[in-house]
């Protein structure tokens, strides 16, 4: 078997050196009642050829985003990733290395994390960024728990523009930790509504920018209101490319910024693995979750990097840790960092402007359809429209014509009563032809 180097001769010799007659002797501690006599009922080993054939068939049954007009967003975004990124993350020393607990032989990983942290700090406008979390939704949940620890309060207010999956995830985690989450009703342009919900028990308010309906908001006033009440402001971003153009969370007074970093360096991959970005102000540092990479010097006075402030983490603090998180999203963070290194700040800004221009073009095309109403007043690369029919059915019908028209809001939250709302996203990969195809297909479907 190609992945198992030991030969029968090796095994026989090694067994005798170990002093065992058969391999079963080494499993002597397993209760007799639990010993399996032979392999379980699953297919036997297969060649690469056979595995490729079988998985290739399954892959062929999926419609890739790039195979035709595609307008899905809602928390995962299709962007072009330079060929160098995927090539570099497949280097053995990045792909098959472990967490950098032995810093002398992991300076590659550690320097990348330090650069990544610097990039995330620069994008979010907040000085402290960690070495990544699993994804944006769990980063959001962890931010709420952190705010609760810091303020010693037990309530969080979630805006009506927060991605429903993020709200659900936050609720699950917060509930188990005894923190109450209050979700405001879904509203296209509703971030500021959180202000009215702040009271003396509020640990934090969570707003999203751009929000799930695509709306862009200046949340400075929300920051001020929160701070006046002793609460923290958490700003969530699901489309990291928007950091290239929009006011950063730090600029607007956020205490914690969390984001989904998938848009930069990482493909759609049906929802994972992704990469959570987490940044906060200096004074919140010691309550931050996740790994942190810091600069130091070695015995020879040379600069080097190490994981630091580990006493916050599970392997030391155990039941008093700031989080139970162990892995970060290392390889995805590397991909993010490589892509961001190629883009640079000005490149990200240009990319963001192109995204916005494409979405404006898409919006104009859809606004021209008589029974389609554009709901989002100000957007980055995604906006919401109201259709004259349930959006899910329209999307299904258009999919049959090979147009992936966007995400019906009802897919995210069936109970919100927004069944006629469709979220439409355009990126730099969206062509004018794609937009024409969408408009035509939508027109035809609505007329039908």
């Amino acid at each position, binding site marked *: 078997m190609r992945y198992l180097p030991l030969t029968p001769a090796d095994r026989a010799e090694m067994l005798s050196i170990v002093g065992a007659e058969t391999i079963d002797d080494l499993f002597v501690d397993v209760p007799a009642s639990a010993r399996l006599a032979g392999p379980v009922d699953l297919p036997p080993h297969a060649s690469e050829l056979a595995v490729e054939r079988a998985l290739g068939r399954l892959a062929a049954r999926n419609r890739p985003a790039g195979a035709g007009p595609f307008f899905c967003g809602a928390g995962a975004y299709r962007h072009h990733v330079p060929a160098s990124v995927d090539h570099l993350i497949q280097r053995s020393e990045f792909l098959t290395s472990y967490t950098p607990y032995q810093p002398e032989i992991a300076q590659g990983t550690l320097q990348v994390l330090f650069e990544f942290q610097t990039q995330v700090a620069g994008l979010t406008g907040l000085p402290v960024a960690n070495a990544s979390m699993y994804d944006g939704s769990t980063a959001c949940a962890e931010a709420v728990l952190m705010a609760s620890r810091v303020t010693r309060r037990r309530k969080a207010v979630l805006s009506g523009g927060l991605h429903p999956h993020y709200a659900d995830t936050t609720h699950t985690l917060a509930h188990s930790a005894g923190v109450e989450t209050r979700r405001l009703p879904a509203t296209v342009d509703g971030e500021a509504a959180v202000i009215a919900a702040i009271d003396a028990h509020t640990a934090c308010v969570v707003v999203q920018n751009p929000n799930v309906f695509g709306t862009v908001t200046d949340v400075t006033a929300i920051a001020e209101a929160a701070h006046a009440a002793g609460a923290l402001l958490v700003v969530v971003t699901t489309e990291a490319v928007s950091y290239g153009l929009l006011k950063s969370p730090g600029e607007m007074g956020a205490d914690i910024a969390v984001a989904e970093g998938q848009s930069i360096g990482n493909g759609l991959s049906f929802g994972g693995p992704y990469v959570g970005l987490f940044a906060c102000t200096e004074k919140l540092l010691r309550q931050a979750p996740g790994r942190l990479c810091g600069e130091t010097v070695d015995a020879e006075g040379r600069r080097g990097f190490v994981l*630091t402030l*580990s*006493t916050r983490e599970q392997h*030391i603090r155990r039941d008093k840790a700031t989080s139970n998180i162990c892995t970060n999203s290392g390889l995805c963070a590397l991909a993010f960092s490589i892509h961001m290194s190629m883009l640079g700040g000005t490149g990200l800004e240009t990319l963001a402007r192109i995204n916005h221009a494409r979405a404006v073009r898409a919006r104009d095309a859809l606004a021209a359809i008589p029974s389609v109403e554009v709901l989002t007043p100000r957007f980055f690369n995604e906006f919401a429209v109201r259709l004259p029919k349930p959006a899910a059915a329209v999307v299904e019908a258009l999919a049959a014509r090979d147009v992936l028209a966007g995400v019906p809001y009802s897919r995210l939250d069936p109970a919100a009563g927004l069944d006629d709302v469709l979220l439409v996203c355009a990126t730099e990969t969206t062509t004018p032809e794609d937009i024409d195809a969408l408009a035509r297909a939508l027109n035809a479907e609505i007329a039908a």
Partner: protein
Amino acid sequence: MRFTKDHEWVELVGDTATIGITAYAAEQLGDVVFVELPEAGKAVHAGEPLAVVESVKAASDVIAPVSGEVTAANAELGDTPQTVNDQPEGLGWFVKIKVADPAEVEALMDRAAYEAFLATL
């Protein structure tokens, strides 16, 4: 100065007790990188966690040797935690407590008893 088996020292002046960790504890801990101290006004009870001392690889609870109310925490330690290693029984003090019952301090070991205790470890 009085001592506990948990390696804390207590210096009582009037009804204010200054508390820190002993030189033995500081040495065992290795380099102190951070000390988490309670806020002034906090009520503390003997036997309960009072502060946390962090080295790079460990976080250790400091147990309150006496009951009372915290009147001051050593703000210097925020910038220079190494003071705990350099002068654990002097400038590296952690908190001052207004003790509820000075007799609690009297009941603790004196230095001779503490050193005898250390010899058994």
